[in-house]
């Protein structure tokens, strides 16, 4: 089974502040990690490969330093990794990102399954997975919380719903996005980490993918961020409630109701 797992490198902490002079984002801390949701996607790919044979390819679109996240993927069991990097990709929104990822998956060829994490902790839109399925024209299943059957040309999976789950049959090739309940990602050993350092990770540019320039990057993105500002701070006033327990309880309930929270 040839499986592609889409990986995004994100800042380790989502703490950000606004630079008052340049009005751009200052990310607190330089540490970058593989998006936590993607670790579940990767683990699922590796589990499927261990069960059915084949290979897992980690794929990421990002700046050159995203290579570190791809090496991490290799140390967690991916067989090879590919980085999509081009100045033209900079500033891509989720539409442009999924467009480029789809092109890369077509170039890899004979891919049977694409696995993404549910969402990235920085953008947290959860749009790339289904968008990618749309660009590829493949069936999709999002919020996958369990794999029940695999093997052959289809999968039986549970898709989480607010009120329970749907049991679905999915024909391959397909795209799935997974949630954290699906597995427990393995922790890379030092041995596999040292081995991954030696691996060669090819870098593909826009030219390698045969993509249309007008659909790339900031200019090609249908959406554009026009303004950012820090989230409003907490109000400093604490409403203090004292007295008999029953009174306190009633007052709290009244407060919550008046704020339309109950």
């Amino acid at each position, binding site marked *: 089974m040839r499986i592609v797992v889409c990986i995004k490198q994100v800042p380790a902490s*989502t*703490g*950000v*502040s606004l630079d008052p002079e340049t009005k751009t984002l200052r990310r607190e801390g330089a540490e970058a990690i593989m998006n936590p949701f993607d670790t579940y996607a990767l683990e699922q790919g590796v589990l499927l490969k261990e069960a059915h044979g084949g290979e897992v390819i980690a794929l990421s679109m990002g700046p050159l330093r995203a290579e570190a996240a791809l090496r991490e993927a290799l140390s967690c069991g991916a067989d090879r990794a590919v980085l999509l990097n081009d100045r033209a990709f900079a500033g891509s929104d*989720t*539409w442009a990102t*999924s467009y480029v990822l789809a092109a890369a998956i077509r170039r890899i060829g004979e891919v049977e399954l694409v696995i993404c994490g549910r969402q990235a902790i920085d*953008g947290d*839109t*959860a*749009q*790339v997975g*289904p*968008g*990618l399925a*749309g*660009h590829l024209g*493949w*069936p*999709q*299943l*999002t*919020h996958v919380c369990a794999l029940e059957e695999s093997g052959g040309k289809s999968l*039986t999976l549970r898709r*989480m*719903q607010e*009120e*329970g*789950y*749907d*049991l*679905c*049959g*999915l*024909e391959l090739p397909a795209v799935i996005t997974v949630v954290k309940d699906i597995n427990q990602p393995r922790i890379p050993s030092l041995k596999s980490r040292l081995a991954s350092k030696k691996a060669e990770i090819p870098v593909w540019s826009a030219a390698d993918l045969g993509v249309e320039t007008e659909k790339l990057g900031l200019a090609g*993105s*249908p*959406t554009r*961020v*026009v303004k*950012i*500002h*820090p*989230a409003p701070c*907490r*109000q400093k*006033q*604490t*409403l*203090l*409630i*004292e007295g008999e*327990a*029953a009174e*306190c309880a*009633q007052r*709290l*309930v009244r*407060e919550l109701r008046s*704020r339309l929270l109950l």
Partner: protein
Amino acid sequence: MQTKSASEKEKYRNVWVVAETVSGQIQSVTGELLGKARELADKRGCEVWCVVLGAGVSGGLEELFHQQADAVLLVEDQRLESFVEETRARLLVRLIEKHRPEILLCGATVRGRALVPRLAALAWCGLTADCTGLDIDTESGSLLLQTRPAYGGNIIATIKSENHRPQMATVRPRVMQALSPDPKRRGRIIREQMNGGDEPAGKRVLRSVRDTEARVKLVDARYIIAGGRGLKGPEGFKLLEQLAALVGGAVGASRSAVDAGWAAYQRQIGQTGQTVQPKVYIACGISGQIQHLVGMQSSDLIVAINKDPEAPLMKLADIALVGDLFEIVPELIRELQRT
């Protein structure tokens, strides 16, 4: 669809709300979005259409007119009984091509989040997910202003889709408020049909399981009731479970409580546990050390119950109740059960 010129853009009119239906029932998020759609449509001088796709749904349509829909675009078909977003996306692309809405809104539910990004990819549209605010930029271009948090809620971003129509946005349930239903409102039904090309091969829903036991997850919970060392033991958590059940919330714990073995690590909130952003965080017997605060300080409203009014969490809280949680929490439960 890409719309570079003004004349191309002008062809797109009206605000669409794609209804969320579960087993033929229209969900409340639809009404919430219709209320917002009305506001947007009034600023644009156009109509609100509610798009309903399903089997056996023609029952609740009157409601949609009462909730501000001017028209209901209805596709009723047995093949739409289960939620197969591949089919719905193709169908919606045809409907969009034919009727050309300027704005398309949908609930950011599990279904909505599966469907709309796929639709946006197929239709070459801009999509902003989980908007907390929607407005029309009346100063220039009359574009839809889409506001949403990013970076775990630390930043608010405003987004526009200038050269693509329809402008798409999803909104989570209970973020917008539905308008009071107006029983005098009427509207028209526009019927459309599925065609063979809509149905994909590829996915089938084999069965749907309703999980009545399903525990609300901390990360999605609207209400979190959290317990700390003040609970003095695992039994205290049963009290919090009762309260959580009444408000449809989840139960969390501070590191002290988990460390003492009173609650599972999955419930831990804080630096070495989970980070949560509920609408309401009720902390019971938690002093509020820094490593705990880090995990819950983005909650919309913080309520603290503690004997010690000087505890750090009591000072941070929006509402602080001074007293014995073993007296106050049962009273809260009683009060909520009464009403």
